[in-house]
């Protein structure tokens, strides 16, 4: 891929993601979602930080996740987020964005050391 094509992809990505983030902010997801994230600081009074392992997508060790269109992916995300209405509300945006970005963004030759956070 040449640099012109890379720049076009980068612009498209930025536009799509900005639109997505703007939706997130306006939908109230941000204010609701804090409760679902682990605490950011130690708790000296806690006896243990272990949590019980919960298989997050069914009891089977292996599962198939099939999505041939954005609606399929939306359904999967809505099922996964069924107990988190704020996240469920953004499932359509995520699904649409995923299909729009599908394989469009080339993985950089320069591998960021922070790729582990992906």
């Amino acid at each position: 891929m040449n640099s012109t094509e890379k720049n076009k992809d980068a612009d498209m990505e930025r536009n799509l993601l900005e639109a997505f983030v703007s939706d997130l902010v306006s939908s109230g997801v941000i204010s609701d979602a804090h409760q679902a994230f682990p605490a950011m600081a130690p708790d000296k009074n806690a006896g243990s930080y272990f949590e019980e392992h919960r298989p997050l997508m069914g009891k089977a060790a292996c599962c198939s996740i099939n999505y041939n269109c954005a609606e399929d992916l939306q359904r999967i995300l809505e099922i996964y987020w069924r107990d988190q209405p704020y996240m469920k509300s953004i499932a359509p945006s995520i699904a649409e964005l995923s299909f729009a970005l599908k394989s469009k963004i080339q993985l950089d030759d320069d591998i960021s050391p922070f790729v582990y956070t992906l």
Partner: protein
Amino acid sequence: MYTLGLSALYHDSAAALVKNGEIVAAVQEERFTRKKHDPRFPVNAIEYCLQEGHIEASQLDAVIFYENPILTIDRVLHAGIATGAVSSLTTANILGSLLSRKLWVADNFREVFGCVGRGDELLFTEHHLSHAASAFYPSPFERAAILTVDGVGEWATTTIGVGENKNIQIAQEIRFPHSLGMLYSAFTMYCGFRVNSGEYKLMGLAPYGRPKYAKIIKENLIDIKEDGSFHLNMEFFDYLTAERMIGEKFEKLFGEKNRKPESEITPHQMDVAASIQKVTEEVLLKLARHARNMTGCQNLVLAGGVALNCVANGKIMREQIFNRMWIQPAAGDAGGALGAALLAMYQHLDHPRKTDQKDSQKGCFLGPAFSYDDIQEYLDQNNLRYVQEENQDKLDKLIARELDGGMIVGLFRGRMEYGPRALGARSILGDPRQVEMQSKMNLKIKYRESFRPFAPSVLMDDCEEYFDLTQASPYMQFVAPVKKTHRKPFSMKNFCDGSNPIIEIVNIKRSDIPAVTHVDYSARIQTVDKNRNPHYYRIIDAFRKRTGCGLLVNTSFNVRGEPIVCTPQDAVRCFMNTEMDILVLEKYVLYKNQQLLSQYYDDGGTEYELD
């Protein structure tokens, strides 16, 4: 029945093929592309696995990806939202990559190979379950406690579970952002090494320092409970909100800014390295004890990137918390491919599991080998001068003689290793008795930092003569002390003021096997037995018969920044571009001083980025 496991789009992409419970092939993508830690979809690795198995993609009964991208998206979004970084470029970049690549592995596979196995569908599992499977299934145990520790998978960063026959149950976990792997990586970066590849350098630096910051770390950065569970204080870390591990608050805590890469290493970094190593060991020991108490198992298996910390592994072993231990040699994400393949075999396809008391990981020799014809054709085409030694015994003696003479020998034999360690198939060998061998190999062959120690390959029968290690370590996963009878007087206390350059310290003889004795008398040991690698065993045995010394320096066949060599071409390129003296490619022996450099056609080797 065939299952193919894939890991990709994170770091260390890999593929692994399992047939009826037997591991047929496993290999990292980086070995083919020559890009270290290559994260891309592992086309070449998959291609190799299918070739080795003599099958087409349509004959695969299951193709499985080692983690679940839906769960990762969930974690990234929650992290971005919780920290207020959702509108940052960092989160946008990460999310963009996830949504554009990680969700489409099935499509990538189909595009290249026509179908995703017999059923044309891709299976998914969970990241730490892949690690757990990679640790348990190849082990010789019917039942074992399973401990997995890494940077992060989807949500889990640490898990404890039990494996029994073919069932794996994960019981407890610690969740992101609280991660021992991230903590260690933060210090890796602080000491000026590269995250996700420099962690073992930090481990190697630790013995040069004193753990004087361990208390500060425990008071400020990590709270560790008696059961080994922990939480980090995220005020000091930036990896949730920015593309860096640490912020100013972290640097202020230690009184110095982070070291710039390639700049001089000072006593401060040595002390910091010693401190985080001590804290990491404390966590791992507590986790191991908790796993024992919780499960009642007598055996322990380990995986996840933190299980590559072989200093900590050695301490767990010496504490005798468990009767026996087995650690997945490809403990990082590359091993997830193998774990996923085995999980699909035993749990999805319900194949029975038979434990192999010998070695179901086959010595880790799971990559490609090359024929005599392929090798000779390449040598002739490139005007390289060589001799052929058909007689195995004579070849072993030749290698032993040259090593005894101080030569550095590149060894390329048989199938390539899987995982980060060279185990005698793609190794550079030297005489461990020569004090200058460590600096010579570091500076003239590997072109790497001079403080870094080398590892010994020792005949299993001779291990207890040289080291305080009573169990086999065929995959170089345990660090143990050199026996007192082989040590010379030496103390790092004499050098703590930092006035001596590291190279001076390194060149002081610490034992009668100085090239593999670290400054604290430790060594990262590979025990070699006849079953796993008969060729390599014979070479070391020939060296012992000649010199009385039953071990060799073994370092991986590559220069710094380069993946371990895969093909004869890679090996020759490395040989010709370093000061290696001799190259042995199967039965072909090349001497550097016989090569006409002007006649050698360099077929365009890559410039490697420093790691």
